[in-house]
């Protein structure tokens, strides 16, 4: 599996072959609070880089989930739709959101590595 990359919208992404797995970061879940609702894209749909690809809602508010790269949705994690609390428990592991067949691998280059993201997250949350 490739190095984990991060977006400014607080999504993480890993790559295995030409399939990317995407979820939201632990930092994002800490900002959101208790997540009580998740909506994912439908399998087979095409999503565009930085476009909306789902929704999470905490007890406080709704937030869009964006896709950091373009591609076709090949799998979704139904378990987080059935039990959204899992997202708070293991956001960067078992609670992945969706998998994409990547359209353009070079889009990954625009994303941050772990160190860069941690710095970004720290600077933007005050």
């Amino acid at each position, binding site marked *: 599996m490739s190095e984990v990359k991060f977006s400014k919208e607080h999504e993480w992404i890993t790559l295995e072959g030409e399939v990317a797995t995407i979820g939201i970061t632990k930092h994002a879940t800490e900002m959101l*609070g*208790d997540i*009580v*609702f998740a*909506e994912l894209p439908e399998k087979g749909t095409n999503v565009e880089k930085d476009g909306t690809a789902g*929704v999470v*809602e*905490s*007890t*406080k*508010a*709704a937030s869009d989930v964006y896709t950091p790269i373009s591609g076709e949705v090949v799998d979704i994690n139904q378990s987080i*739709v059935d039990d*959204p*609390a899992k997202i708070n428990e293991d956001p960067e592991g078992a609670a992945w959101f969706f998998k994409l067949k990547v359209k353009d691998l070079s889009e990954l280059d625009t994303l941050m590595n772990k160190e860069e993201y941690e710095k970004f997250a720290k600077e933007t949350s005050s």
Partner: protein
Amino acid sequence: MNKKTPLYKLHIQHGAKMVEFAGYQMPIQYKSGIIQEHKFTRENAGIFDVSHMGQLFINGSDHLTDDLEKIFPVNLKNLKTNQSKYSFLMNDKGGIYDDLIITKLKDGYLIILNAACKKQDLEIIKKKLNGKYDLNLDESLSLIAIQGPKAKDVLGKVVSNITNLKFMNGGEFEYDNSNIYITRSGYTGEDGFEISLDNKKAEKFVDQLINYGAKLIGLGARDTLRLEAGLCLYGNDLDEKTSPIEANLKWAIPKSRVGSDYPGSDIIKKQIDNGVKTLRVGIKPETRVIARGNTKIFDQNDKEIGKVTSGTFGPSVECSIAMGYVENNYSPTNTKIFLEVRGKKVPANVCDLPFYKKNYVKGEKNV
């Protein structure tokens, strides 16, 4: 610059995330999060800093009772000393300026007002009383609520003799060599108390409650708790354009006051006699989708019939819950309605309130 309550330091010490609310810096949640705080209150005892709310004292005797009955649609003559009633400050059109709790004291009345409304309320009430009485919106007092099945045990360890208090009744008690005023009331659907005491003693008092096992609870859980209990939040579910009858709060206006004189009384009587066009109802979406305030409501034929005013996920009832206003013919329980969330129509049903069954002390009348 936002005001701070006397518990500000304590909130920070306990890891609160602070937000601006009605001109105050208030805790939205602490470290454990809204769901845990909510459940802790339902199972144990939660402490709420409600010091931002207004505590309006009006001194006077029989004349004051008469004059206040010309302002509030409640029967104050029958109220015993230390008894409380839920009521409204209304405009001439029957719309609600604020919802409030009025308690009869030995030498006057105490009115608890919403933080965002308290200054305007004071001006309105002062004007209507024509300067005849002393009005004191007392900022030297804090207001602390303790709510939950263990509230009486925890509070009982800090203040003696509180267990005899009945629901919607209050009294003077002794704490730390001074008199404090406690009512058995709250806004969570649980048994509980609200304690009014000197700002200087508030932190020590709350510290003691915490030492006996209660926990600080933020505004986030206060909102999910009150919504599960079917209680209205002023500014969301009630406003200047909505009457108590439309808000389905007719129970708070006694029959003896229907038609008697107070602002909006003619409209209230008309609405009771002839019915209203829209009514507040409970709403349960059929999925986990949350319908927040301002979500549009439709019928099966895509006709817009109303609007959601509050919506959240209910941690104790474990489903999405909402309240809103619909055209009267859609108000019966189990009426199928549709909520427009992010462009999709989500099926939902009108349901009875409260979502969560109240847990007030047995043998006493619920509000």
